[in-house]
């Protein structure tokens, strides 16, 4: 459906997007996740033809967005970060203009305008000035605009930013509903939101794609480092001895407590965390070391997100350092 190939965008000396490549299939809700300034909006602007790319290309159903913009743009509906609304007009007037510009005419135009207004539930404000509407309704008018012309893909740039909690829930429901009939790509810097709505997540940090998978896989594959904390009635040496017999453990730290207790923290890369805790239980039982407390903290998508977006700049610095070394050599 959409292929993004080696996309790079520089603003002067600043590289907003670097060598970004991914492919989007039909019929899913995709979440574009990344901290502020990660290059989400830039990427979306390039994908929709609002911005040129320094290099690389974007294909929409085989149409290059730069070479065949009309064909490509017809397949997409786009809601930019700030909804592009003419505040002096009513939603009907506005949508009629957008529909016409998308090539709709006569009965079909009327029909589609009524349709998208019903879909986004803005019929009862259809004749009020957009400037007088609340932010949530403006956002809906913006989404309605993207839906006109029945595009295959709908791209929404941070559609829930600045809305109140109820409006956020409503917009999320709307996105979920749209996901049944369209391919939806939407960006956000809020993880829980993406987790709640999307079946595929793209994580972008510093203009690079750092992860692309469904939420469950991301949780499972990327950060299987679950954290375990043990409290035992034994000295650190004894605990160390027991742990030495087990695999999949790392980053072990000991903390001696009053009364002969030891608290031990470590990470486990075991794919099945409960299997790991079972082994721990038996290992301590066999060694006659009383295991008083064991807590397992499972890695969440939040951790994946933080780790991925935080490690990226470090890697980048390394890469730059290497580049410098190469140049010096």
């Amino acid at each position, binding site marked *: 459906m959409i292929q993004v190939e080696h996309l790079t965008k520089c*603003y002067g000396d600043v590289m907003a997007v670097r060598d970004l490549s991914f492919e989007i299939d039909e019929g899913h809700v995709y979440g574009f996740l990344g901290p502020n300034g990660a290059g989400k909006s830039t990427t979306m*602007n390039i994908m*929709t*033809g*609002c*911005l*040129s790319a320094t290099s690389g290309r974007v294909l929409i159903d085989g149409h290059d967005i730069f070479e065949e*913009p*009309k*064909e490509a*743009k*017809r397949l*997409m509906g*786009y809601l*930019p970060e*700030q909804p*592009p*609304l*003419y*505040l*002096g*007009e009513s939603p009907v*007037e506005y949508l009629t*203009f*957008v529909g*016409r*510009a*998308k*090539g709709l005419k006569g009965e079909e135009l009327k029909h589609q305008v009524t349709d998208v207004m019903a879909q986004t539930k803005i019929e009862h404000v259809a004749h009020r000035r957009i400037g007088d509407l609340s932010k949530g309704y403006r956002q809906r008018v913006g989404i309605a*605009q993207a839906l006109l012309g029945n595009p295959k893909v709908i791209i929404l740039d941070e559609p829930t930013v600045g809305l109140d909690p109820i409006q956020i829930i409503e917009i999320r429901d709307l996105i979920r509903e749209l996901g049944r009939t369209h391919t939806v790509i939407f960006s956000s810097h809020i993880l829980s939101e993406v987790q709640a709505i999307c079946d595929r997540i793209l994580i972008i940090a510093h203009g690079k794609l750092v992860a692309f998978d469904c939420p469950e896989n991301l949780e499972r594959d990327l950060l299987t480092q679950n954290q375990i904390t043990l409290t035992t009635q034994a000295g650190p040496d004894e605990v160390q001895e027991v742990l030495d017999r087990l695999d999949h453990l790392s980053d072990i730290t000991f903390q001696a407590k009053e009364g002969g207790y030891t608290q031990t923290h470590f990470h486990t890369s075991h794919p099945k965390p409960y299997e790991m805790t079972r082994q721990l239980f038996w290992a301590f039982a066999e060694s006659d070391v009383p295991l008083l407390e064991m807590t397992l903290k499972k890695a969440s998508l939040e951790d994946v997100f933080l780790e991925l977006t935080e490690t990226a700049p470090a890697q980048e610095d390394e890469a730059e350092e290497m580049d410098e070394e190469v140049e010096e050599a």
Partner: protein
Amino acid sequence: MIAVLQHELKSYFHTLTAYVFGAFLLCFVGIGAMMYNLEMAVSNFEYVLSFGCLVFVVIVPILTMRVIAEERKQKTDQLLYSLPISTTSVVLGKYLALLVVYLVPLCIVSLYPLIFSRYGQVYLPTSYGSIFAFFVLGAALIALGVFISSLTDNQGFAAGIGIAVILFNYYSVQLAEYISSSALGTLVALWVIAIALGLVIRFVTGQENLAFVIMGVLMVAAFVVYQVDATLLEGLLPNIMTQLSLFERFYVFVNGVFDLTGIFYYLSVVVFFLFLSVQSLEKRRYN
């Protein structure tokens, strides 16, 4: 293009813009008609238009200031970029809408000679010839205004620059006559113009090298001409200004000559500035 045209027209006639523009134009032409045709009993309607074209200095920038600047400010230009219509048709649609807004009061004005001719001798060919020239003059100024509006996201700034540029154009010939017509004086003036042009290019395209090269080439060329044959430069500036001034060309029509080169000049100015407006919009995509 049709969609943009319809949309723009709707917004002009829904807001005060079209009416204020029309009222100003009619009012000014009306005062002129009263002064020349009624009070002084002159039968030439051309003089009214010659007096009336001063109003362009104010009303054209007011009409065109928001046309692209406002889209930028409200970020609605993003919508236009993402729609399956080309930048050229966006600019053309907007420009044609402005022409329609301009044509409505002009249609009313074009009734005046007919009305006057019922009460006296009015030579209609020159009257309508100059009304037509008045139309293309306005069309050229509107194209210039569209371009100025495409340079900024600040309406006030667009209006200010527009007024300054059109006013300068209006008085350019008189101004040029103030400058010493000696060869050296012309050389200095040409250098100043070259530097100004360089600054404009630097501001519009953001390319310092290009601006420097053009500026340098022009300055050197002027200096070479001065060295080779200084007499060529004598009185050159008023000549250039007369050639370039949009208003000066209009006075030819007022004097009763239907000057085809003048029409051609106006049309090329329209095409030139619309082309620049498209480039200016495209440039935003390539920043």
